[in-house]
């Protein structure tokens, strides 16, 4: 098989998941749960297989190829095609998306079987897999596009899937509307980012006359600096929306309302990394606008720190992971902002492994808690209201109840903390090494973020798995079934050895990506920074252990040890620095008020008032004339007489 025969397969990465949707839509009811799950997983697997074949083709012809599928729209000088890009960067993303995606599909068969029953609507099982396949298709469009507009299709397409999946249990959540609100928030905040993407594309079109990578990127440096700055800064806005960076990160924590596999796939491993991919893809443009580069760098670095501070104070097991994701995305964005594309992509891949692992592990914990809750409720024939299976304060001691989950979670956690020789250590170290070259200030910020990361990992491990169970549910929790633990095992293996992709000295990933993007910063392995990073990680873990592990909490009501030490600051951290409240006060409430004012007093009062006023004027004039019509023949005759007399007088006097 040669590259020429392999590359034309690329449309199938999108079409196979779409075929999966079609089959499940038409025959889903007949297939049953197992069948639906199987078809959907096979569709994801098929997409993965095609991605592997493309990678094989690229091994022979690493410069890749663009493939035209059809003309999309053509008006005057605007020509946009449905065209696919096969190169090392896009295929890397395809492999991550479909690979992790397939594992999560398999995991979801088990997870959603339980979840749909817990939530009381087993019929929604099929819908979940329809959405999941749609997500794979949209994400594949995003990463395989050959022009920005097609990328935007995927970009908003994954946003739609995110909306659908966050709102999957649309009748649940706070006041029954919590999930629906979270979904809407995610979509709208993402749309704010999409505004940036759109305007960047408009600017690009009027500057370069094209939206295709092949025509814009090689000529990136030709445009005026102001134009380049506009394009890149608007792209940055898009990145902050999709990759949940400052200031648009607020949707991601709420997005945890979606089922846990969704959090793993969309809100940790793949969709949220789209922003990183966008910057990596557009690197030539960013390289020509140094000011934008440092903006990206600082946005990433500050987000990494900011989100990490919030993560240390959360009690919801998934929210900790959500803020951790935001923080890790900050690392990646900072990396690609510096131009260290290889480091950024490397971290993207390892993060996909270990964060998907952590989320799925958390899902397993949640299911275990729910099973424990139900067993306990059955045994005592009582109904416990207000049980939250995600609250870490009610967990504890799960190490012995759920051993497999514990071990894989431990691997994921340590990889996240950056402990050698797990994957996170190598990728994070590359970013830190690059930061050390580019900007010492950023380096320090990222180091603090790394310290906090290790700290909240230790806190979470201690609260969930160590000590003793702090609720009946935790004490009665049981291990999950193999359909859940097997994907966890595979992901744990990947999270452990994923660092091998770009080991110091081999630079497999670096060489592979070099064919497509030329990094601006070559971050070699630096023993000093690696050592510092490792020490920091161990310090963070140790600190966390000191606070939470040494004398574990025994009751759920006990105050958090950190809260005791930080006092008021802890409340700020737990309430996420009140960012949501600030945004509500600054944007949501004023907009609601404004729209109510426009709809009421302005539209119905002023504008329609003028209209009805004009009608009223006509009525007023009519009333004047009406008083003449009194119905008495004599007065008509008199008026006539007077009229005749006047006319005669006029004629005579003339």
């Amino acid at each position, binding site marked *: 098989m040669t590259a020429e025969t392999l590359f034309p397969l690329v449309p199938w990465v999108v079409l196979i998941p779409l075929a999966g949707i079609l089959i499940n839509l038409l025959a889903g009811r007949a297939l049953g749960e197992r069948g639906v799950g199987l078809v959907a997983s096979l569709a994801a697997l098929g997409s993965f297989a095609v991605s592997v074949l493309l990678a094989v083709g690229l091994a022979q012809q690493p410069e890749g190829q663009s493939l035209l599928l059809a003309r999309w*729209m053509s*008006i005057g000088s*605007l020509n946009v095609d449905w065209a696919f890009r096969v190169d090392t960067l896009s295929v890397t993303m395809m492999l991550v998306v479909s690979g992790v995606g397939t594992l999560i599909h398999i995991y979801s068969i088990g997870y959603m079987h339980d979840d749909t029953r817990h939530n009381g609507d087993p019929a929604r099982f099929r819908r979940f897999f329809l959405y999941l396949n749609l997500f794979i298709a949209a994400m594949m469009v995003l990463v395989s596009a050959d022009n920005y507009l097609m990328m935007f299709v995927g970009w908003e397409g994954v946003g739609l899937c995110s909306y659908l999946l966050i709102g999957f249990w649309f009748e649940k959540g706070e006041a029954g509307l919590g999930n629906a609100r979270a979904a809407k928030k995610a979509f709208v905040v993402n*749309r704010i980012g999409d505004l940036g993407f759109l305007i960047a594309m408009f600017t690009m*079109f*009027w500057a370069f006359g094209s939206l295709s990578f092949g025509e814009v990127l090689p000529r990136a440096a030709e445009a005026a600096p102001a134009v380049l700055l506009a394009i890149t800064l608007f792209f940055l806005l898009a990145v902050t929306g999709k990759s949940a960076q400052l200031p648009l990160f607020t949707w991601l924590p709420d997005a945890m309302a979606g089922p846990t596999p969704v959090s793993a796939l969309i809100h940790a491993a793949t969709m949220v990394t789209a922003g990183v991919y966008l910057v990596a893809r557009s690197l030539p443009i960013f390289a020509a606008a140094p000011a934008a580069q440092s903006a990206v760098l600082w946005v990433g670095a500050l987000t990494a720190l900011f989100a990490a501070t919030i993560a240390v104070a959360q009690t919801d097991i998934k929210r900790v992971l959500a803020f951790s994701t935001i923080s890790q995305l900050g690392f990646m964005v900072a990396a690609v902002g510096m131009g260290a594309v290889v480091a950024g992509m490397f971290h993207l891949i390892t993060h996909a492994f270990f964060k998907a692992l952590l989320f799925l592990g958390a899902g397993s914990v949640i299911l275990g808690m729910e099973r424990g809750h139900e067993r306990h409720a059955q045994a005592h024939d009582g109904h416990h209201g207000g049980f939250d299976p995600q609250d870490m304060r009610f967990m504890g001691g799960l190490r012995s109840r759920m051993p497999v989950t514990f071990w894989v979670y431990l691997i994921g956690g340590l990889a996240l903390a950056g402990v050698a020789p797990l994957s996170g250590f190598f990728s994070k170290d590359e970013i830190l090494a690059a930061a050390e070259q580019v900007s010492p200030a950023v380096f320090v910020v990222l180091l603090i973020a790394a310290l906090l990361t290790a700290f909240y990992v230790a806190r979470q491990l201690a609260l969930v798995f160590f000590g003793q169970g702090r609720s009946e549910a935790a004490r009665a929790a049981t291990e999950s079934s193999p359909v859940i633990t097997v994907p966890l095992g595979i992901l744990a293996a990947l999270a452990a050895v994923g660092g091998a992709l770009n080991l110091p000295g081999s630079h497999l990933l670096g060489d592979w990506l070099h064919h497509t993007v030329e990094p601006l910063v070559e971050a070699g392995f630096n023993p000093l920074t690696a050592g510092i990073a490792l020490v920091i990680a161990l310090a963070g873990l140790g600190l966390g252990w000191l606070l939470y592990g040494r004398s574990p909490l025994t009751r759920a009501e006990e105050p958090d040890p950190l809260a005791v030490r930080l006092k008021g600051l802890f409340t700020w951290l737990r309430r996420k620095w009140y960012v949501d409240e600030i945004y509500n006060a600054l944007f949501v409430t004023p*907009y609601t008020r404004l*729209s109510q004012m426009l709809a009421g007093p302005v539209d119905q009062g002023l*504008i329609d008032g003028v209209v009805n006023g004009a009608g009223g004027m006509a009525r007023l004039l009519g009333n004047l004339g009406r008083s003449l019509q009194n119905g008495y023949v004599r007065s008509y005759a008199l008026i006539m007489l007077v009229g005749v007399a006047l006319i005669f007088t006029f004629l005579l006097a003339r």
Partner: protein
Amino acid sequence: MNLSNNPLLWVTFLPLAGALLVALLPDARRSWIRWTAMAAALATFAASLWLLAGFDPSSGQMQMVIQVPWLRVAGISIDFALGVDGITLLMVLLTAFLVPLAMLSAWSGVRERVKGFMILFLLLETGLIGVFLALDLVLFYIFWEFTLVPMYFLIGLWGYSRRIYAALKFFIFTMFGSLLMLLAIIFMGLQAGTFNYTDLLAQRELFAGAQLWLFFAFALAFAIKVPMFPLHTWLPDAHVEAPTAGSVILAGIMLKMGAYGFLRYNLPLFPEATLRAAPWLAGLAVVGILYGAATAFAQKDAKRLVAYSSVSHLGFVMLGIFALTQQSVAGGVLQMVNHGLSTGALFLVVGMLYERRHTRDMAAYGGIWKVVPVLGALMLAVVLSSAALPGTNGFVGEFTILLGSFGAPALGTPWFAGLATVGVILAAVYLLHLYERLFLGPLTHEENRQMPDLNLREVLILVPILVMVFWIGLYPQPFLDLINPSVETLLQSVLPAAVAMH
């Protein structure tokens, strides 16, 4: 010239023939009446496809022109002149496509005075198609005013509680605008000695001196019809009170008459005035986009919300038209079609909900996706198409409009398009709000628990629209191929002339 072979005549007068046929049927035979009317509407659609088949998409000129002297007034000939170009063709196709669907939606909604309803509906279709095809200004004016009459009765007789107020407001508001246009038409006819559009176009220098006034007179009529901010207040009232089928036609086609009028008359006849007015009208369009979106968000009545969303969406169309670039105008034309489909579908769904619960108040719903999954899924697709999600029709239209307006020389600044892009966010806000209030959340009203899901007829109404939604979204090129040459011809006639007149 053998007129019986000309599809233009058939497509214009088939509905009229259908109306006459329906008038002969006995009142009590409701199903005869319905099916005859439907047959006439479908025959019109077939005729419009025949028109499409005979159309040469490579040319941007008027085609299949019919021109027969009709009347002579004060020595000036008034012709019966019809013709079609790419823009017209799309509008005619849209009309012929939507009318049978709207009629189908009235199958169960209209139970009283079916005969009158169907006759008026078919008359309306003749009027609408005539407006798009007319190539003589007097003929155009006659069709333009003629459409008011059936719509007035559709709202006034089959509407809801405040129907008389709404019908009267609709009638007088739009009539007010068109009177000035009539004066302008007479003035031009007297100056040039003809009312024929093609001849007037060739002699537009004759009234170039007064073109700012003429532009204004035409613009007022069209802006009310579109409707542009701040002349829009008749729209929510008319929509809310109109029966579903009436709302579909009102939003889907009648509003397009205004935008079409701008394209067909204002731009080519008064090029210099167009260039001078472009930033002002584009500014009003942008205000309309944002204002419509913000007001829609505050509505409690689902139908009112959709009505205000029309103000916002038509703002995009107007921005596209007055940005005067190839992309923006072509996008504007496409968006006219898109709005007809998406907003038409929104009105249809709201109508279906109304038939089930007899209220348009959003608070009476909530969480009904569980009860009516098919309706919920189809509504979601419609909402997303209205919110311009990529892959649906709305995106292609809005994207090309905004892209074209962003660097438009006629506007001179990217701010118009930049602010209009904010409308894309606001659209997501109010549309998802609508969807959330109706379909998401917990089921709060017991009476909604028994709501029946869509029946086959209702699925048959929505599916063709959704097919078009995704077709235009994923592969709009066939439509753009129809639009492009005509838009090119149009702009070539506007821009150099305007520059030369300076």
